């Protein structure tokens, strides 16, 4: 799936537009990998042209 977004929050809004509820689910409960680097909290992460995004459940442990 391709989206147009320069920042993590823009990505969240775009996901919510296309799949209502998904964006807020991603924002609250998921980590993301941007071009191979995992961000547990990605508010200040920048997205470049062609960035590959993976949605991953937030990492927690025992």
């Amino acid at each position: 799936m391709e989206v147009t977004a320069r920042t993590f929050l823009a990505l969240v809004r775009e996901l919510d537009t296309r799949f209502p509820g998904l964006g807020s689910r991603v924002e609250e409960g998921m980590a993301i990998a941007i071009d191979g680097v995992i961000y547990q909290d990605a508010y200040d992460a920048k997205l470049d042209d062609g960035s590959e995004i993976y949605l991953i459940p937030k990492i927690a442990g025992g």
Partner: protein
Amino acid sequence: MNIVTDNKWIGQRTIRPDGVDKVTGRAAFAADTTMPGMIWGKVLRSPHPHARIKSIDTSKAEALPGVKAVVTARDVVDFPIDKSVMLGIQDMRWMCRNVMARDKVLFPGHPLAAVAATTEAIAAQACALIEVDYEVLPWAIEIDDALKPDAPILHDFMKFEGKPSNIAGRLEVKKGDIAQGFAEAEIIIERSFDTRPVHQGYIEPHACLISVAADNKTTIWSSSQGQFMVRAMTAYLSGIAQSDIRAIPAEIGGGFGGKTIVYLEPLATLLAKKSGRPVKMVMTREEVMRATGPTSGSKSTVKIGAMKDGRIVAAQGTYYLQAGAFPGSPIRGAVGCSFAPYDIPHVLSVGFDVVSNRSKVAAYRAPGAPIGAYAVECVLDELASALKMDPLELRLKNAAKQGTKAAHGPVYPRIGYIETLEAAKAHPHYSAPLGKLQGRGVASGFWFNAGGESSAQVNITEDGNVVVTTGHPDIGGSRASMAMMAAEVLGIDVEKVRPIVGDTSSIGFTHVTGGSRVTFATGMAVTQAGERVVHQLKERAAQIWEIPVEAVEWRDGAAYPAGSNAGGFEPMSLGEIALKAARTGGPISSEVSLNAQGAGPGFGVHICDIEVDPETGRSTILRYTAVQDVGKAIHPAYVEGQIQGGAAQGIGWALNEEYVYDSKGRMENPGFLDYRVPVASDLPRIEAVMVEVPNPRHPFGARGVGEVPIVPPMAAVGNAIRAATGVRMHHLPMSPPKVLAALDAAAKAS
């Protein structure tokens, strides 16, 4: 980041700061706490695995002399089912229903009410007087039973693919084209496995003492893996503002993930608020086993396709994990970790979160990862055997390395999996001779490791010593490693550094102790705080010497003029500068709060030698070596302890531990006599081999180490039993009756 390598303290085995208190009995655990006017709380728990609560009558309990308060679900803040409220990874909809049943009880041991009274005996007596009218419902505990077409549905709101279901969620990780991968493969092996739920087995039961003043000022002493988590969950569930709650961490007697959520604190808070008295609650061992989260039981199917030269081209895993009464099994661990050590072009890994009528799952050391690794590493063992390849060579041929794209998303930074495999292969254990009825098994394991929010303060005392305050309980030696990092940065003797664990009112927000994050994330905060203090010390020296701060350098715990042009001043020690702190600008201290990203993943490789008694099915571990990439062992003895402890827990999971249920769905073995964890006489000394491939994202190269070691043992043990007997065990635990039955079946078949 430039990693500091010329270290005085990092890598040393310093005296542990909590050792004397713990061996002399002075360490204050939650159950040791008392307060004037304290009363006792007890919980009424469901005897049924599944029942509707038609009514609860607490009047007789309330009338019993000595009873000061009774609470039920109506006292706990409700979180409606239709709106998720996340606190970290926990959904408060499930937490509020887990600490106190609403409408339905969903497992034997599910709390229904709590009573506070002047003695424990009166509180227990009052619980027995509470009258509950149940409509008993059919129940399902095992995954197979919960997934049957006519299975009793635990939650009316839960649907999967449009139909009422006990499947709460599905997680998929995909890379490449799995059909193409299997089409290319020259050999394919597919096997199914199942595991039983096991408990974290911490030796200290949950305990807390809580007082609530008339203005809601609340003080909590409790055993937990995170005082900020305790504060937040108690606030959410009691309705008291977080700013009114001070959560003080007691020493903790083990957690392993099981204490990253709360059970007693919200109830004790509500009882304390209602009664106006401090309330103490301590679980019995039976309550711990029946009513606190074990980890998931599971059913897994793994299929691996490879070329004849050993290159793995396709890997598929399907994992069903038991969540217990509410959603939240660790499918992320099984799905994300199981193939993570390998560079495989085509991967499909799918997990299903299945609710059933037993206590809600809680995290257990690398949650979900051991389950996935058990299946994958056993199939890899069979693949190696089919290809007539050395099992470590097979893993080396397919090992992930820096630049490998993992199926779950990241591109690996500098990692140490290949070095770990090579160290295992070169270890004398791997080539030691074996006798009759003996077998050797190997297995690998992976864990993500975490970073997250941490705060740390470094304060210089007027007498020139240092206090380092951090914000999370010490469950693995973090006080020692924080003191060492501070001493290293400040250039002073580690004995001059006192590490303490602050409460929620005395230090900035810190995430739980878990996820193998503390040495990485809090270590980063301590290092940064120490560096800022060094800058302040240089500024003070510059002021005293009346030279620019750039002309001052700091080394070996003292300020020096940086070169002859700076002036011919004698070095000024930290102590000398501290004495003049008030006159040179005030207190010398720094607090750093950060959200650490970039925790490096961890890899382990275990070698297990086993002897199987064909008469009894008993497996005896003869020798066990656990090799792990630890980044940099800040305090080697603690790191070895983490590796040995995780391996021991994995061995217990493999060989003996399981929940046994009666015909009424109740646990029959809720105690350490019948729930069989390994004890010292069961195991040989576990040799921990530390491979150090520094994590470039940490100032001293540290990686998380605590969780990786529980991931390989189940498969290492299973592979060793197969090597010793020729029989593959697909069901855990591989206890003597099960091994004997498998040996007998194999003998009959042949």
